């Protein structure tokens, strides 16, 4: 048998049929649905009188435009309410399981899939949301789709796809102490650029990747899309099985054993061909922050705001100049001298329990700076209750953080949580596009520990120096 990559193996196992030009009909094992990108798809089914082919393979949740304040009294915004009510009605009509805003299992779609054991190694996972790449942490082939494709999956449990190329990102050595998966994923994008992965599925491997926890791997794969890749993958291992075992929707009994036996075959073979290979030295990575309006605009916290003319390509020069103007930054300013107004801890990148533990570790016994408004939005109701049980919520509240209900929140500002024009935010989310967190809002992406450090000092801060630079209570 020829050597195959992990991606080749999953792909081959899902081909239903092939067109003469190589376009394939691919079977979809798991489909996640949320309120923003599904209404038109269900409407399409209704107009054509088509049922959902296998409703049990789709799981729906409300997350994007839900407020993160108390929801027990209903939702004020009429447009958001209409989208939520539409999803509730559609899932009921078509027989799809739905976690509504009061369900404890509700949360961000990419957090609840793994949490429920719905996401499994070797499966194909899709969702009308680009950060579906997150599920690749389990060795699932997972990618975002548009609404027409959501409809296609609901109707046929398949998608028409062209196979992508194989790309390997090998991260050698160990990450230094205090450097997290978020720093790593930003460092990779800074290295490859936002289009570096276009047309490829990335497999992440190497010692630093194996060392990451499952949650760290999710953070890593979550941002594969920011590097332009169709999907990101990490081969499953003992950590993957341990994470999944006993989760509500994970296989049980004999099925579990059969599944694990199969999952053990899911790795790239010796000598498998990759079209593109990038090697990164983990030992040299510092805490990373972004300075511009694209995730590739990422540098070490110890650096200064770059000079647009320092970029070689003229398109990059003009986009950097535009980014600095939007961000209200001057070239040459040390990153650690940039004051902030808000801190957002949350999102499908960094809204899991380990992220909240990191934040608590940094802020315990400290207070957030008086000029800063800081909020923590747990990624799901289950993360929230776990953090409350572990005493994390109490530490965060004591430090001055606002403790919210789960949802996408200020990751995209479709709900009431957003930046005002000109406000500057230290954010653990994944996109710093113009206007992403609110019209005119300025986003600096970073890890939870770095955002916590910024909350304490009121400016971008190297978390490794917090003891000397901070203002401990």
């Amino acid at each position, binding site marked *: 048998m020829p050597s195959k990559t992990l991606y080749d193996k999953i792909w081959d196992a899902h081909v*239903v*049929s092939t*067109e*003469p030009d190589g376009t394939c*009909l691919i*079977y979809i094992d*798991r489909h996640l649905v949320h309120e*923003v*990108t599904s209404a*038109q798809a269900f*409407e399409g089914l209704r107009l054509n009188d*088509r049922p959902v082919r296998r409703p*049990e*393979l789709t799981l729906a949740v409300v997350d994007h435009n839900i407020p993160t304040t108390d929801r027990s009294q209903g939702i004020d915004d009429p*447009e958001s309410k*209409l*989208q939520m009510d539409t999803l509730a009605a559609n899932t009921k009509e078509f027989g799809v399981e739905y976690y509504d805003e009061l369900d404890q299992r509700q949360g961000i779609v990419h957090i609840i899939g793994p949490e*429920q054991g719905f996401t*499994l190694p070797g*499966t194909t996972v899709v969702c009308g949301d*680009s950060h579906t790449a997150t599920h690749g942490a389990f060795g699932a082939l997972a*990618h*975002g*789709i*548009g*609404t*027409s494709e959501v409809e*296609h999956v609901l*109707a*046929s449990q*398949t998608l*028409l796809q*062209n196979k*992508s190329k194989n790309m390997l990102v090998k991260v050698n050595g160990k990450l230094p102490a205090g450097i997290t998966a978020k720093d790593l994923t930003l460092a990779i994008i800074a290295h490859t650029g*936002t*289009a570096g992965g*276009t047309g490829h599925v990335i497999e992440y491997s190497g010692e630093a990747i194996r060392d990451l926890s499952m949650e760290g791997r999710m953070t890593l794969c979550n941002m594969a899309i920011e590097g*332009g890749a169709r999907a990101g993958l990490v081969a499953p291992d003992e950590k993957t099985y341990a994470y999944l075992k006993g*989760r*509500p*929707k994970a*296989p049980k009994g004999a*099925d579990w054993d*059969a*599944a694990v036996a*199969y999952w053990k075959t899911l790795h790239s073979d010796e000598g498998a061909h990759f079209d593109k290979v990038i090697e990164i030295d983990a030992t040299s990575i510092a805490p990373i922050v972004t300075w511009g309006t*694209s995730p590739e605009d990422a540098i070490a916290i110890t650096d200064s705001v770059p000079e647009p003319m320092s970029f070689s390509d003229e*398109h*990059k020069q003009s*986009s950097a100049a*535009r980014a600095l103007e939007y961000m209200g930054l001057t070239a040459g300013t040390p990153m650690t001298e940039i004051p902030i107004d808000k801190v957002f801890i949350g999102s499908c990148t960094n809204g899991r329990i380990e992220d909240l533990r990191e934040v608590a570790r940094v802020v315990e016994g400290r207070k957030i700076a008086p000029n800063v408004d800081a909020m923590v939005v747990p990624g799901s109701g289950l993360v929230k209750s776990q953090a409350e049980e572990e005493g994390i919520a109490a530490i965060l509240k004591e430090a001055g953080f606002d403790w919210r209900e789960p949802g996408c929140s200020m990751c*995209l*500002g*479709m709900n009431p949580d957003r930046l005002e024009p000109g406000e500057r935010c230290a954010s653990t989310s994944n*996109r710093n*596009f*113009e*206007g*992403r967190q609110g*019209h005119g809002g300025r986003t600096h992406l970073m890890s939870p520990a770095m955002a916590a450090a910024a909350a304490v000092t009121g400016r971008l801060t190297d978390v490794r120096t917090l003891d000397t630079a901070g203002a401990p209570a």
Partner: protein
Amino acid sequence: MKALKELSGVAAPMPMINVDTDMIIPKQYLKTIGRSGLGKGLFHSMRYNDDGTDNPDFVLNKEAYKDAKILIAGDNFGCGSSREHAAWAIEDFGIRCVIAPSFSDIFYNNAFKNGMLLIRLPQEQIDELTEQAEFGSNAVFSVDLESQTVTAPDGKEHTFEIDDFRKHCLLNGLDEIALTLEKAQSIDQYETNTNNAHSWLNPAAG
């Protein structure tokens, strides 16, 4: 989907790299449960001033480009989210063809599902086309899907690549879901085979 065989018209030049989906259609327009009428929100923050008036410097607000049918853009166009609203907004504005050095994968798929044609050409050719597009309403471009060519106002033909299956669907305006459902037997067969080999794939009732 609407068929598209050929198209000719003015092309709006937009030589910015990494034009993301938040720029194409910001989130306040994502609260709709319909597909139509999004053209007014296209490129919202570049197109309108804070008070809601038109920004006269933005390309699509210039008289020459108000009826543009083609957009000539920079590298990595449509990066960011999976929102099909981005394709809906461009199409609703009246643009059915975007030419750029590269596109994000999801945006590329979404556009074709909505009867749009996306053309990838090398950066040098894009630079040439952008320069000619800057002549405004006097510069008419023609695109022919059958022969896979873009003819620039200077008469020069630029050939582009496209997958046969995509081309076939767009030329004939085919409904891909109906096409797939014709393959129901293959899908049934696939399900039977995997159910036998991998029963663990059925989600536990959790």
